[in-house]
C-alpha cells in the first residue's frame, strides 16, 4: 500500500500552487478603474465602468435574467435557472471576480481597464 504523504506530494502541491498563480497573472492590471464585461453567447455585449455609475440601474441581457449595477458593484439579481449559482456569486466588486450563468450563457467578469484602453477611448 502507498503512503499517505511523501516527498513527491510536496512537489505536486507546489506545482498546483504555481499553476494557480500562473492563471492569476493575466488578470492583473495597474489601473484603478473597475470595468465589468458582460458576455452573452461568448460575445462581449457591454462594458460598464463601475466607477462611473452614478445611479443604480438594472438591465436584462436575456429574458428572465436581470443584472443590477451600482457604483462599484455589479451582480445577477434574477435568473431562470434552477440552482441560481449566478445569483449566489453575490456582488462583484473587485478585479478578476467572475459570475456565470451557464444555462443562459451569460458571464460577468471584472477586468481592470488597462492603459491602452484608456488611450483608445
Amino acid at each position, binding site marked *: 500500500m502507498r503512503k499517505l504523504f511523501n516527498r513527491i506530494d510536496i512537489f505536486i502541491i507546489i506545482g498546483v500552487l504555481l499553476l494557480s498563480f500562473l492563471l492569476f497573472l493575466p488578470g492583473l492590471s495597474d489601473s484603478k478603474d473597475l470595468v465589468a464585461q458582460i458576455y452573452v453567447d461568448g460575445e462581449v455585449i457591454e462594458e460598464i465602468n463601475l466607477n462611473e455609475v452614478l445611479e443604480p440601474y438594472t438591465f436584462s441581457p436575456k429574458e428572465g435574467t436581470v443584472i443590477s449595477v451600482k457604483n462599484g458593484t455589479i451582480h445577477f439579481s434574477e435568473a431562470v435557472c434552477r440552482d441560481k449559482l449566478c445569483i449566489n*456569486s453575490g456582488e462583484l466588486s473587485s478585479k478578476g471576480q467572475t459570475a456565470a450563468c451557464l444555462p443562459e450563457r451569460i458571464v460577468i467578469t471584472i477586468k481592470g481597464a488597462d492603459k491602452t484602453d484608456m488611450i483608445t477611448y
Partner: protein
Amino acid sequence: MNTKKSKTKKVAFLGIMAALALSLSFLESLIPPLPGLPPGAKPGFSNVVTMFLASSFGIGDAFFITVLKAVFAGITRGTTAMFMSAAGGFLSTLAACILLRSKKFNSGYIGIGIICAVCHNIGQLIAACIISGTWALITGYGPLLMLFAVVTGFVTGTTLRLVLPALEKTINRT
C-alpha cells in the same frame, strides 16, 4: 473477484458504492456557497468512491459510477450540471485509474487526491468555457479552483487512505 459465485456479491457491492456516491453528491449540494469561492465548488467527497473503485475494484466500475453521477446530476439539477459533472468526473476518474494503479508513480494518497481534484476542476472549467463560449472563465475562476483543489484533494486523499483497508477487506470477503 474471479469466480462465478462472487458475481452477485460484486453487483450488490457496486450498488452500495453507487448509492454512497450519489448520496454524497446530494449532501454536498446542500452546502451553502462558501464566501470567496465560485458557487458550485464542492469538496468532492464522492470522488473517494470513484478513487477507491479505480484503485481496487475495476476501471470499468469506476467509470460506470462516474456516468451514473452525471445522469443523477442531470435529473436533479439539469443538463448543464450533467455536462459539468461528466467533464470533471471523466478526467478525474481517468487520472485516478492511471495514478493509483501505477507502480512507478509512488506518490502518497494526498498527492493523488490533489491531482484528481485538479483534473476534476480543469474538466469542469473547460466544460464551463465551452458551454458559455467565454474563455475569460479560466482566469476568472481558475486560480481559486486550483487552490481549492489542494484543500479538497488533501481531504479526499486522506479519507481514501483511511477507509481503504476496511473496504479492501470487504471486497476480499465477497
